[in-house]
């Protein structure tokens, strides 16, 4: 439906009428146009600033860019000393509690596409941390054996471990109770590798 009316203000201006708004005519409870303009433009500026801030954070926070465990193992020499994120699925029966510098820690092994890596995570893991559910870990490769741990149960024990201090659970999009290929798929993802 098209607007059928002409512009009455323009028509009136053609009549030579003084159309400047009168302050006394402001509707009660409604802010004056100048205030409304300033407030609206401030909100627009806030939205633009918010978008710019979010995009800058997205681009600069490259730490979330994570490598899958198989890539992290393959590029271990290149990543030596660097802090990065690694994704993998904790292997069944690999999780063990330990301590690092008197802090609570958990040692386990993650796997992706059949390649496994040992991990020591310092601090409390998220509530849903459990074997079979992928995690994203932030930390760095360390050569040697972790303190207070002789070996990783079901681990690769190859002289390196990933020292993590930040863990997020990365849930998959599976909601089927009776998913027939679940264990098979978990194996492909590496969940059953290592033990």
């Amino acid at each position, binding site marked *: 439906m098209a607007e059928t009316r002409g512009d009455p203000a323009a028509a009136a201006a053609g009549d030579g009428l003084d159309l400047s708004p009168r302050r006394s005519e402001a509707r009660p409870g409604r802010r004056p146009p100048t205030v409304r303009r300033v407030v609206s433009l401030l909100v627009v500026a806030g939205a633009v600033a918010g978008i710019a801030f979010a995009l800058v954070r997205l681009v600069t926070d490259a730490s979330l860019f994570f490598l*899958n465990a198989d890539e992290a193992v393959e590029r271990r020499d290149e990543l030596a000393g660097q802090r990065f994120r690694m994704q993998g699925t904790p292997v069944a029966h690999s999780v063990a509690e330990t301590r690092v510098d008197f802090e609570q820690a958990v040692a386990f092994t993650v796997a992706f596409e059949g390649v496994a890596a040992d991990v020591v995570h310092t601090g409390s893991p998220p509530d*849903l941390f459990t074997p079979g559910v992928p995690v994203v870990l932030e930390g760095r490769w360390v050569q040697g054996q972790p303190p207070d741990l002789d070996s990783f149960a079901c681990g690769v024990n190859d002289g390196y471990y990933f020292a993590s201090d930040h863990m997020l659970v990365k849930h998959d999009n599976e909601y089927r*109770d009776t998913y027939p290929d679940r264990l098979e798929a978990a194996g492909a993802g590496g969940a059953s590798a290592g033990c």
Partner: protein
Amino acid sequence: MSILLGRSPDRQPPGAAPAHTGSRTTRLLGGLALAGLVGLGLCAFVFSPADSRPGPEAGARIGQFDAVRLMYVHVPAAIWTYAALGACALASAVYLWHRGAWWDRLAHACAEIGVVLCAVTLLTGMIWGRPVWGTWWEWGDVRLVTTLVLFLAYAGYLALRSVPGAPEARARRSAVLGLGGAVLIPIVNRSVEWWENRTLHQQSTLEELRIEDLTLFTLVLGIFVMGAVVLWLAVHRFRVAWLEAEAESAGLQAALAERRAEAAAAEPGAGAGGSGP
């Protein structure tokens, strides 16, 4: 158009503003939406199971457990955010083509609803993320941040609309922004596929149909119920926008009539009020 205007030919002439925002159709739609919400609540909180499956270790369960119930609001809200903002972009494009106020008001109504739904999507996602991921928010997560950008872009659109000015110019610049902002919709929607290793967000469950039985039914019910709520809101918001425009126009006409009367009265020899002693 008649459902949006809610006019009845025997009561109102074509093109006239609606007398109120309710009609038999919207009351029926509202009733259906309300009944749907009750049904959705029952399915989501009573009948559907928590997400729990056997894990790789004997006796261990994995899943999102009760947090999955947020999905029945989060996913429909996200889908209808795309739909509402997509409709805003479409209406904006048609406005730029036809210049009809009807399309401008439709774009406005859709944008408002889209922004509210986008806020619901962000909030439910954050509430879900805390127990499931272990974090409320990650600035480096491409799905989260692009959704926030979408929200801010259309919140800015609404703020720009409220800047006082000539209605035609306001409608034109809003339409340009409403149409341009739509480029964000496919970016947000596809971000989990395009930047798979820059997001904690899972890929689409519905596209791959990795869901079944009552969980699937409840999710689909949520999408339909949210659709009914969105349609009901859109019709009412459109009618309110139409009434606002009519009130603004009527106010302007009254002010002009008053000024003309004053001008006529001020002319020498015009009427009793204008005659000198």
